[in-house]
């Protein structure tokens, strides 16, 4: 009976405050020292990782290393800590929805893994707060910050405030098949200096039958892969970010966007790419498989491709000859010096990090756990299984010494890298970009596609005020 009574009470209550119930009331700043003296503490970590599934290494690291080690350390200090792990391991959008719902209701885990791109929209929604507001000024004193490059820190920052600690980084490069290059008479140490040189290499590869010279992600079916491993790296090669934070404007129908779309037109219009593949729902996976099978010449991807896709043993599209056959090179700007800040080469980076739930009962202990997770030992432990880029320079120096590819990313690519804007409207802009590439791939002239893109951006932003166009 009580449950029914409760349900009825809640229903009437909710109906009464219907207008207010969707919004999040601004809560008063709470005591950052709450629970600091507790001797029995329960902390929860949530991540989009699950043992035996997506991001399994991370899940195993949390369960097998972070939790027991931290609990032991705390016990030594006389604090009885229980740490729980909420694992998910699903599609990013679904994970995001779940985390948003949790944070919105003031429930959910104390430490939450978040993609850097979500930080802005979560902050705007009031779901997360700057670390100093959750924990206090002691956040500044953490010695780990010195080890994390500013560019990487920016990924978990919003409006110049740190909202979380980054966990790793990456960069985009061009991968190419040296065997095919040799057949086409191209050098094994290929380093294009401009987009034109990429097209030249593609044309050279065109002569080999059964080979798709260039895989440049395009279309809506590829989703964010089109944006992150296609449009945006090209766009920064023209000298523009998709969102200019200083001016507060988005790229609309600009020359830069048209340049990017023109490049797409040349790749697909000249038959250097496979337009059908771009439209298949499983197109990206198939492009991986084809590259692994040696039927794709050049492919733009993040280092994830190297360490998780064509990794010779455990990759999803394992390529036993990876180390000998696959070459990688920085992505050139459109023309030398045309890149962002006058760079000759460009890249985009992504990556996630850890934020603290503002509603945590134990902000101090949660921070302690968070810093432990981002300590050099813990970070080293995380990447023990396979090399990958971490957020910490000291760790990278140590573990990447044996991995030329990742050292290359860490040393040469990340410093050139740009990040996506973490604003709530970004996904719609991203879809508009994907659509524009699709239009071009299926035959629409770049000018027209760019004009259509402009309309979509206007619809998403509710007006043309914050759009740059020329």
């Amino acid at each position: 009976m009580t449950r029914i009574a409760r349900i009825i009470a809640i229903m009437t209550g909710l109906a009464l405050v219907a207008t207010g119930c969707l919004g999040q009331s601004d809560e008063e700043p709470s005591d950052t020292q709450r629970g600091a003296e507790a001797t029995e503490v329960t902390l929860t970590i949530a991540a989009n990782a699950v043992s035996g599934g997506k991001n399994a290494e991370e899940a195993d690291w949390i369960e097998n290393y972070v939790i027991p080690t931290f609990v032991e350390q705390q016990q030594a200090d006389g604090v009885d800590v229980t740490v729980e792990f909420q694992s998910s391991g699903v599609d990013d959008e679904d994970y995001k929805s779940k985390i948003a719902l949790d944070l919105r209701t003031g429930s959910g885990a104390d430490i939450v893994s978040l993609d850097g791109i979500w930080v802005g929209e979560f902050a705007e929604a009031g779901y997360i707060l700057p670390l100093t507001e959750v924990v206090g000024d002691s956040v500044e004193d953490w010695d780990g910050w010195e080890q994390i490059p500013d560019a990487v820190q920016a990924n978990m920052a919003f409006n110049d405030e740190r909202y979380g600690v980054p966990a790793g980084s990456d960069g985009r490069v061009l991968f190419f098949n040296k065997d095919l290059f040799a057949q086409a008479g191209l050098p094994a140490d290929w380093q294009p200096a401009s987009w034109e040189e990429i097209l030249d290499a593609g044309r050279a590869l065109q002569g080999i039958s059964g080979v798709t010279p260039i895989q440049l992600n395009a279309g809506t079916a590829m989703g964010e892969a089109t944006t992150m491993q296609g449009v945006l790296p090209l766009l920064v090669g023209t000298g523009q970010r998709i969102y200019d934070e200083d001016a507060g404007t988005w790229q609309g129908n600009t020359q830069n966007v048209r340049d990017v779309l023109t490049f797409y037109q040349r790749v697909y219009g000249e038959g250097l790419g496979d337009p059908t593949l771009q439209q298949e729902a499983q197109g990206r996976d198939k492009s991986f498989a084809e590259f692994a099978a040696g039927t794709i010449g050049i492919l733009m991807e993040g280092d994830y491709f190297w360490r998780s896709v064509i990794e010779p043993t455990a990759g999803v599209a394992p390529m036993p000859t990876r180390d000998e056959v696959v070459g990688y090179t920085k992505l050139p700007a459109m023309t030398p010096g045309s890149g962002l800040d006058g760079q000759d080469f460009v890249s985009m980076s992504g990556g996630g990090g850890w934020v603290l739930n503002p509603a945590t009962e134990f902000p101090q202990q949660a921070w302690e756990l968070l810093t432990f997770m981002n300590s050099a030992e813990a970070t080293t432990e995380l990447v023990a299984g396979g090399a990958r880029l971490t957020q910490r320079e000291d760790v990278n120096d140590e573990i990447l010494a044996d991995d030329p590819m990742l050292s290359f990313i860490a040393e040469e690519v990340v410093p050139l890298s740009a990040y996506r804007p973490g604003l709530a409207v970004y996904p719609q802009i991203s879809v508009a970009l994907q659509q524009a590439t699709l239009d071009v791939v299926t035959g629409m002239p770049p000018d027209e596609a760019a004009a259509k893109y402009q309309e979509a951006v206007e619809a998403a932003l509710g007006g043309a005020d914050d759009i740059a166009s020329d």
Partner: protein
Amino acid sequence: MTPRDFVGRIGFYVLIGLVTAFFALPMLWLVGTPFDEQPGLALSVPDPTLGNFSELLDNRFALPSLLNSVLLALGTAVLVVAFAATAAYSLSRVRIPGRDVLLYLLLLLSSIVTGTAAMVPIFLLMFELGLIDSRVGVVLVLSGGLLPAAIFILKDFMDSVPKSYEESARVFGASAFQILRDVVVPVIRPGLATIAVWTIVNVWGNFLVPFILLRDADKQPAAVLMRTFYTEGGAPNLALISTFSLLFSIPVVVMYLFVNRKYGFRFYGGIKS
């Protein structure tokens, strides 16, 4: 049999054969791929291996998630069958003004709640009710969404059962409950079985509701686990997916076979043959 009939009969069997092939063809992948050493989308005659299964069984969530699915599916089925049966019986036998309109309306509303747009209200409601991370909560939400259609189908079904059964039992002095238990339920049992299977099938494949409402990975059902067999880049791990698909299908298939054998898996069109 005239030659024309004969040709017609041959044509009929050819047609049946084509339809059968149409329904069987896609399932070949499910049967073959789990045993393939290099599982892909291609259908190949595999060199049979059980490697994929041992890889899957290394996943500590794999088998428990099937159990979780069973719990959620059975819980929902019990609730839906019990409540839909009593409600459909009552609605079929007692005239309530506007009941048909009401049923249609509920049926339509149920389409909203099963969609993604209702995610926020459902989550907030369950949060206020303290039913987050509770299997009971998932069962309640799923039941609420499935009940209208279940009542709709069962009422249709009840309407075709002669009322003289119940009247006859009343003349013997049976109580309303006895009538329900001894006469109505046995008579509409194939319908109840159908609704139960329908419910289980719906719950079995539902991803969003359990995913949003459950927190503990150990409580997540197989439909959620299935979504974890992708890499961070979104590429499916076909070895795990194909193998798990097979395991994931077996319980519902077995259930269907069981129900089919025991109760006859069909709708009822009146009692008189």
